[in-house]
């Protein structure tokens, strides 16, 4: 650990106003296991996820990046202990610390304010339920809408995420769709209760390279039009360099690098980030310090760091 912390200078975090909308993680820790032999998964994460931008969280498997996403949703594994604060400011209200919320309050907030999409849509959608059932479940619970109202909202959502023939799609089951379509449906489900924060955990990793670009473009478009605060968790620096506004690199449960996309990809401060970037088959194309929304690398690079 020492060698990384030694060369990570305290660095200028892109300024975010304290009352800006979004999520603000301060000193987030997570430990698992028995009290005596506990294992530190997260060792004090500071992270801002402001509304209207995509915050990238990169790192190897086991670096704690997925666990950070789960912890924000309160979905950390049973028997784990969290520390630090996660403060939330949204259009409908704010919470000084999500970790201090009672389970019932957290449940009400989850899905409603903070939604999540997962890596493999074939696994994260229930194989034995219709798309309509899964798409309307959340909004009927949170928004208390009627069945017919839920259906028309579901249709609009599917149109929004560009699933063809929404009316027939509602009646179908997950196994009747391709992976890319399923991920669009997952995004529709995540947006069904109109959240203001979206956590995307490796949203393109399980997909074919050809459909990845479409999903990423959709995320960008939704982020901009809905003023979403998006946390993009991925190990794929190619995806990261195409989409994220700011990039945070994690290793062993700690932040080793943080900055705008340009800073991190072009002038990495930490050895570790440099090693990750050097491991890419094609160095990511980078056109400027302020990325054009929806910009994608000319050749999609999918790098598995494992």
């Amino acid at each position, binding site marked *: *650990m020492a060698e990384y912390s030694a060369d990570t200078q305290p660095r200028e975090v892109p300024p975010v106003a304290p009352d800006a909308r979004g999520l603000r993680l301060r000193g987030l820790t997570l430990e*698992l296991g028995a009290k005596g032999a506990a294992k530190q998964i997260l060792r004090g994460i500071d992270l801002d996820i402001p509304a209207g931008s995509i915050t990238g969280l990169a790192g190897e498997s*086991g670096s704690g990046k997925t666990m950070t996403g789960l912890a924000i949703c309160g979905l950390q594994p049973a028997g784990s202990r969290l520390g630090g604060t996660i403060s939330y400011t949204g259009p409908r209200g704010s919470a000084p610390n999500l970790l201090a919320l009672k389970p019932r309050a957290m449940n009400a907030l989850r899905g409603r304010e903070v939604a999540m999409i997962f890596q493999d849509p074939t696994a994260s959608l229930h194989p034995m339920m219709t798309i309509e059932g899964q798409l309307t479940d959340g909004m009927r619970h949170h928004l208390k809408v009627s069945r017919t109202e839920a259906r028309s909202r579901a249709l609009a959502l599917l149109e929004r995420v560009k699933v063809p023939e929404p009316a027939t799609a509602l009646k179908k089951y997950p196994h009747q769709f391709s992976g890319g379509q399923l991920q669009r449906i997952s995004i529709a489900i995540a947006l069904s209760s109109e959240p203001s924060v979206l956590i995307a955990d490796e949203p393109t990793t399980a997909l074919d390279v050809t459909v990845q670009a479409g999903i990423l473009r959709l995320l960008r478009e939704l982020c901009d039009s809905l003023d979403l605060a998006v946390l993009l968790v991925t190990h794929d620096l190619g995806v990261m360099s195409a989409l994220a506004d700011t990039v945070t690199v994690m290793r062993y449960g700690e932040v080793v690098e943080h900055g705008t996309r340009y800073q991190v990809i072009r002038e990495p401060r930490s050895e570790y980030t440099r090693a990750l970037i050097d491991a890419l088959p094609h160095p990511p194309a980078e056109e400027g310090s302020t990325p054009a929304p929806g910009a994608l690398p000319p050749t999609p690079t999918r790098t598995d760091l494992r």
Partner: protein
Amino acid sequence: MAKPPGGASDSRLELEADAAATAVYDEVQDDRAGGSGGSAGPGGSGASGVSFSALRNRLRLPPTFRRPMAIIGMSIIVLWFLVAIFVPWIAPYDPLAQQFDRLQAPNAVNWFGTDSLGRDVLSRTLYGARISLPLALILVVASAIIGSVLGAVAGYFGRAVDEIIMRFSDLVFAFPTIILAMIVTAALGPSLTNAVIALLLVSWPSYARVMRSMVLGARSREYVVAGRLLGFSPFTSLRRDILPNVAAPVLVLATLDFGNAILLLSGLSFLGLGATPPTPEWGAMVADGVQQFSDWWLAAFPGLAIFTVVVAFNLVGDALRDSLDPRTAGAVQGVKI
């Protein structure tokens, strides 16, 4: 790389772990298995703690047998096998001698009372271990061997062989075990040997099924194909490359089946289709209790004997299965809803 905080096992983190949760799971397991100083007994600090963990390392049991339930089960099994071996020295009286007043309730002389012929129930129950345990052992071993061989052959060769063997096992499966066994024993004539033969007929298919599905899975593995390319004959390949890799589940099944075998054997004897008088078989003794059912001790103790043996084998079988299949094991991180 800097020294990892969690000790030696941390290096596995980047090699194997797929997600943080798995990494931790690995490590929790390691800590338990290693019995490191940190988990030594309460207040076990300093010299006493060290010697305690050293002692534990010396008396090391396979992790499977270190759970309390498995230990209880194992002790009961060992106890019953000791009884079966040394019963002539343990049992207070001759199990067949009709030397007491008939139908005595438990008392100082006959702790478990006496039966309708004036025999000591305690002695008969203890001697019962000599009947049930070896027979159940023979039954389980034989059906495991027959079933596994047939299943392996069916799975490895496939096609017609597979069809024939599996259709046959389906037919056996279609019948309730005890009805089929009952018909067979009734046909062969009631005796313990015939009961074992009848149960053998009905118990091999479960092994055949497990074996077949595993061999089917293993057959296409690369190391098996590699062996075949090296010129191994089908039987060599089956013996060298496949069987060692699929033996463990069969062992678990056999352990769990042992309890079942005892239940079925005693069930048949209970129906009068197994042991013949005056054999002190547990099921037959319970059947005596049906005749005189106001005299509860006739049936209670042999029944208890069956129950303890079966529970013990099921406990050990469970522990073995859990250690093979971590999904059902206690150590997996629970999901909280």
